[in-house]
């Protein structure tokens, strides 16, 4: 089963949007059965409402959309409370976006959220690669707070079109609980090296639609040089294991 490790639902404060109907149609078009779905950054920052909207969409999607809870660490204890509420309502993970919510991922004020996720038994997914706030080693430091809970980094843990951030991304992968998405990672040799060095269990297919293109991101995995067994893990097996989707079903 092919599982998209991350899509965004809703109409973002930052100008992009994806509704559940087109999202499911997009999944169908590229052969993805299921997607993890995080809310976009909502207008006026009402994350509780955004989480409820995604949960409602998931409830109507016959198991094809798995909700992630998104909160703003600047909301302090209210953010932790919203995480607990959302997980109690079925969210399967915590999504953090340091760039869009303007916080540094390894700031100590983020730690209670990461620790609450671990206590609740849900992985953390972090938008990665943003200069100053979500650099690979900053992400690795945050992952180190809860070494037994999976910590998933978007887009290979980096954004750098010179290829020079991959070395820090590999250092972040030195934390055994760190996993990285395939999304947007132009260096095929990096994706292949993650599998060769850290194991196929550490690489996760995702499209981050609508920010990236589902059809192209799917090709990124199809054309890389993986064995069939590795590709099965990357395209869905890893996400199913990390997020305990069989148990949820």
């Amino acid at each position, binding site marked *: 089963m092919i599982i998209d490790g991350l899509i965004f639902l809703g109409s973002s404060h930052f100008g992009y949007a994806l509704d559940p109907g087109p999202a499911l149609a997009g999944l169908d078009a590229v052969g993805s059965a299921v997607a993890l779905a995080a809310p976009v950054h909502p207008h006026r920052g009402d994350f509780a409402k955004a989480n409820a909207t995604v949960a409602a969409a998931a409830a109507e999607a016959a198991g094809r959309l798995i909700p992630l809870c998104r909160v703003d660490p600047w909301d302090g204890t209210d953010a932790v409370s919203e995480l607990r509420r959302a997980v109690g309502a079925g969210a399967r993970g915590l999504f953090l976006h340091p760039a869009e919510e303007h916080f540094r991922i390894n700031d100590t004020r983020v730690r209670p959220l990461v620790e609450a996720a671990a206590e609740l038994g849900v992985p953390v997914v972090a938008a990665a690669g943003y200069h100053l706030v979500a650099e690979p080693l900053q992400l690795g430091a945050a992952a180190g707070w809860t070494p037994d809970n999976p910590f998933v980094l978007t887009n290979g843990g980096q*954004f750098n*079109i*010179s*290829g020079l951030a991959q070395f820090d991304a590999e250092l972040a992968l030195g934390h055994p609980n760190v996993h990285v998405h395939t999304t947007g990672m*132009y260096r*095929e040799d990096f994706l292949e090296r993650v599998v060769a060095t850290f194991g196929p269990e550490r690489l996760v297919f995702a499209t981050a639609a609508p920010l990236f*293109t589902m*059809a192209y991101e799917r090709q990124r995995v199809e054309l890389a040089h993986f064995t069939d067994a590795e590709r099965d893990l990357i395209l869905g097996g890893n996400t199913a294991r990390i997020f305990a989707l069989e148990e949820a079903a």
Partner: protein
Amino acid sequence: MSTSTSTRNEDDEGEASVIIDMHMHIEEVASLGWKMSAEDCVRAMDAADVDSAAVMTLTDLPGLNPQGLELIADACAAYPGRLHGFLRLNPAHLETSKQLLRQAVTELGFKGLKLHPVSTLQHPGGAATIELIRLAGELGVPTLFHCGDEPMSTPLSIAEAAAACPDATIILGHMGGYFHVEEAMDVAEQHPNLILETSAMPYPDKIRTAVERIGPERVVFGSDGPVSSPSLERQKVVIADLGTVAADLVLGGNAAVLLGLT
């Protein structure tokens, strides 16, 4: 599929009659653990049905890479018609760079100049860089810039060079990277001597937007291979759904003109 020493010229099933990758690398950089050979390039090109490619080193001559000219010249000689040399230079060593560029183009058949402001620490609008770009223009070859998200490599930085060298053709490799693609299109609209090159930038729809905004004659396919897959990068142009005429130009027709192959 291409053979290793001849160009693919069939026009099968409506595909572009010539496919040219405008951005590939050859070099072994021990400090980074990167090994990219001419054979690696040709193997990746064959897998993607790419006829020929512009090849350049990963580091700059003079300085880190004293054998850079010979490395690329030997690769092009080993694969005549498949590999076209671009000389990657450091404008800080201006007189040496000018001499090397003249030699490369007039004696060894190199087809272009490559500049990476991040590795050379030379701003695109700096006097030395401008002088070198103007020389490339006088020699009739384009200048390919690394154009991404890092300081000194953004579209607005390189636009300074485009404004100062209106008679030289400048290619924005990666067309702005992850976060500067819109700016790459903005400056390309302002400076007709700018060309956008598609490698590594991950958004197929931006290729279509670029074609709509500046015309199909000013967008060229590149892969940044061999470690970035030419097969995948070509799919990006396919998914952009440009139509046959525009796709033919982007995938090879424009590059053939820029490289003087027509």
